[in-house]
Structures are given as C-alpha cells and as structure tokens.
C-alpha cells in the first residue's frame, strides 16, 4: 500500500490534535504540520474539509481528509499496522473503544467546567472532574497503562488532557495527585515516552493560553 503524504491541520494547545501527533510519532510517520489560527480566522481548507464541525484536527492522507481525533487515531492504527495501538483480542478492543468513548465524552468538558466558571460553579466543576478522574483511575487499576503492559490506544486518547491539568488545578484550587495518585503516576510514566514528551506542550504555556482565553471570553 502506498503510504503517501501526511498533513495535519493542527492547533498546538488542542489535546485532540495531540492525540493524532502522538499516534503518528508512535508509528514513525512523518507529517507536515499546519497550525490553524483558531482566533484569527479558520483557514479555507479547514472550513472546506470539515464543514460540519469546523474543528481541528483534520488529517490528510493521500489527499483524503480524515476527521475526528479518535477516528483518526483508529485510522492511523489501521493504515500503519506496525506497533499496534489497539489490542488484538476483540473483547479488549471493545473495552478500549468503550473507555476512549467515555474519555471523549467526559474529560475535556469536565475540565472546562472548572476554568470556564466563576464562584460556586468552580467548586461543583472541580468535584465532578475529580469524580471522572477517579472513574478512569478505576479503569487503570494496578496496570501500567490502560491497555496493560504497553502504551496504547486509550493512553493516547487520554494523555493529552494532562497538559491542561495545571490550568484546572490552578483555577480549581486542587492537585490531581492528592485525589488520584495512580493517574498522576500514569501521567509521569507516559511522559517518559518520546512520542508523548515531544508532543505535549508545557502545561505552563497551556495555563497562560487558558488565562488569555478566559479574558477574551470575559470570564472573571
């Protein structure tokens, strides 16, 4: 199969884009990165190739656009089968997809309730977010990674959010480590991987970004 050119419509702070970059790095696939200016104005290419959601990431491969980060990671795993991200066993694959889906539905939105709120709502957001992390901690159990001994699909789907945790911690007045030590340990473990260390931005930089974004939105 001809592998062809790979291009990514990207935004440095987007955890969803980070997923794709980590997956590509895990597979040893080079790509052309194109940063979208989400505040200055989305590019024509983005609006044309993702008219429904108008969101990054968009992966181009052989001239075709693949949308939605979790779907893109699955696509990458299927097109470049070496170093598989999903397990082989169908039941384990179903479990991986299940947890990826929960992470998709809950984590970013949960975190947003902390930094997008003021006053009492922040406390509520913090409590709910910690509950979500505890649920994930339950799924992780005593394993090194969500899939077991190896870094894989669910880890890729989840780890980018950790670059936003400092922002949540500062705005929410808590530390993830105090409530979910296993998740903290898992984060440190993942950050030792070259693909993750290379892709994840400095959490301080993300915190500054969130602060600027809050000011733009008139929050606080």
């Amino acid at each position, binding site marked *: 199969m001809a592998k062809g050119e790979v291009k990514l419509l990207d935004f440095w702070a987007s955890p969803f884009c980070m997923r794709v970059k980590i997956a590509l790095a895990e597979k040893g696939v080079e790509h052309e990165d194109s940063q979208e200016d989400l505040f200055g104005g989305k590019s024509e290419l983005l609006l044309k190739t993702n008219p429904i959601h108008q969101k990054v990431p968009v992966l181009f491969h052989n001239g075709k656009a693949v*949308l939605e980060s979790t779907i893109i990671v699955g696509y990458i795993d299927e097109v470049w089968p070496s170093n598989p991200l999903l397990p082989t066993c169908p039941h384990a694959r179903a479990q991986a997809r299940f947890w990826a889906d929960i992470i998709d539905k809950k984590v970013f939105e949960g975190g947003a309730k902390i930094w997008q709120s003021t006053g009492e709502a922040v406390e509520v957001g913090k409590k709910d977010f910690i509950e979500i992390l505890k649920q994930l901690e339950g799924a992780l159990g005593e394993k090194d990674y969500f899939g077991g001994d190896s870094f894989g699909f669910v880890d890729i789907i989840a780890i980018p959010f950790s670059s936003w945790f400092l922002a949540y911690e500062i705005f929410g007045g808590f530390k993830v480590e105090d409530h979910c030590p296993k998740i903290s340990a898992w984060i440190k473990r993942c950050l030792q991987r070259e693909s993750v260390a290379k892709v994840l931005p400095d959490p301080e930089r993300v915190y500054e970004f969130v602060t600027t974004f809050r000011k733009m939105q008139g929050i606080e």
Partner: protein
Amino acid sequence: MESATNGDAIGILEQLSYQNLLCPIGRLYMILMAKSDLKLVGRWSSPFVMRVKIALNIKSLDYENFHETLNPKSDLLLQSNPVYKKIPVLIHGDKPICESLIIVEYIDEVWSSAPSILPSDPYDRSIARFWAAYIDDKWFPTLKSIFLADEEESKKQYIKQLEEVVVRMEDAFLNISKGKDFFGGNRIGYLDIAFGCFLGWMRMIEKLIGLKLIGEAKCPALAKWAERFAADAAVEGLIPESDKLIELYNPLKLKSKALAK
C-alpha cells in the same frame, strides 16, 4: 492474550479465529459454541438495541433475549454495565460488551467470516464512523427533542434543525453509496445500521406531527433507502410499530422529560 491467560477455551478459539488460524472443524465448533453463548440485554423499543439485533441477524447468530424492564433496572444490567447502566449490553460467554456501535464492531470482528458489517478499507471505515458519530450527536437527540417539545414554537425549531441534518445525510448517502442500494454498498452495513435503527422512532414522530421527515420531496435517495432498509431480511420484524411506541412513550413523556434508552 487476555483470554488465553485465563485458560478460557472459547477465548483461545476466538483469538485463533480472529487471526484466521482456525481449521474448518475448529471454526464449526466456534460457531456452534458461540451461538449458544450470547445474551442481549435490551428492549424491543430501543433503536440502540435494534442495532445489535441487526448485526446479529447479519451474522446469522442465535442469542437469548433478556427483556430489560428499566424501571427498576435489573441486577443483570447494573452488573454488566455499571458505568452507564444502559441498554444494550451484549454478554458473550461471561464478558459484557456495552455501547451499541462498539458492540456492532465487536460482532463484526469476532464473526469475521460471515458478511462484513464495516467496510474493509480504512478510509471508508473512518467515513462510516464519522457519520455514525454525527447521527448519534445530531439526529437522535433532535428527533427526541421534537417528541418532547411541548410548545409549537420549539417543536418547529427542532423540526427545522432535523431538516438540516436530513439534507446532510442525503448528501452523505449519495457520496458513500456511489449509486448502490445502501451506505454499505450492495448489502446493509455499519452506517445503514447506525441510521436505519431510528426508522421506527421517526415514523412515530411523523405520525404525531403530521409531517414527513424523510420524504420523496426533500430527500428522494434516502426515502428509497429507508424502504429498502426496512425490507431487508436482517431488519425484518425489528422496526417497532408507531402505535406501540406512542403507547409506551407518551405516558413516560408525561411523567418525566428524560427518556431511558
């Protein structure tokens, strides 16, 4: 291999079958064992449960139906889906699988030699998954909102929103089917299942509002697709009748605004 480590014979056979390493006798044993080892926790009225039933029918799989009362939720449901406590749950042997589209993929992967449900090409798979996610995100919630809306004005707003979704789906169908009968090509596939499961609900709402949501005028290709889908052997008998749905859901609507799956 998780199953092999547990010394689970079915698990080992699953693995070998999945890797196409099983001999014909082994495959036959797999099919015989697997057929008696499936339990579906669900209700006749749930479009999400219907997705799983269609997939099981495509693969000609027998299964035990466990009718979930939902109010209160059964111990089986609470134990097999502790996270969401929602139907459908497919229990294969002693392993529960949750979330309708994840279950459909699981069925397609375990019973990989029967007619395929997902496309074989990775790009086509990504397209199918994208539109299935869109359907779950936009189609069903808007359909439900039309049903639940009390005021005419909000009903009209939701109907307008749904009409926009229909236009997109008509376009998607024309692009994906490439002139064939279904999203999946000559046979129904993943996206047909993901979308077609809502036909019963859709017909019920059309009856209540006196308006066609997927009709010849606005979406001729989808209208014909809907007829073909409903007539497919794998779908036969599964689309709930409008009157029965109205009978079930109207009292629930009056009691509470939140509809269980």
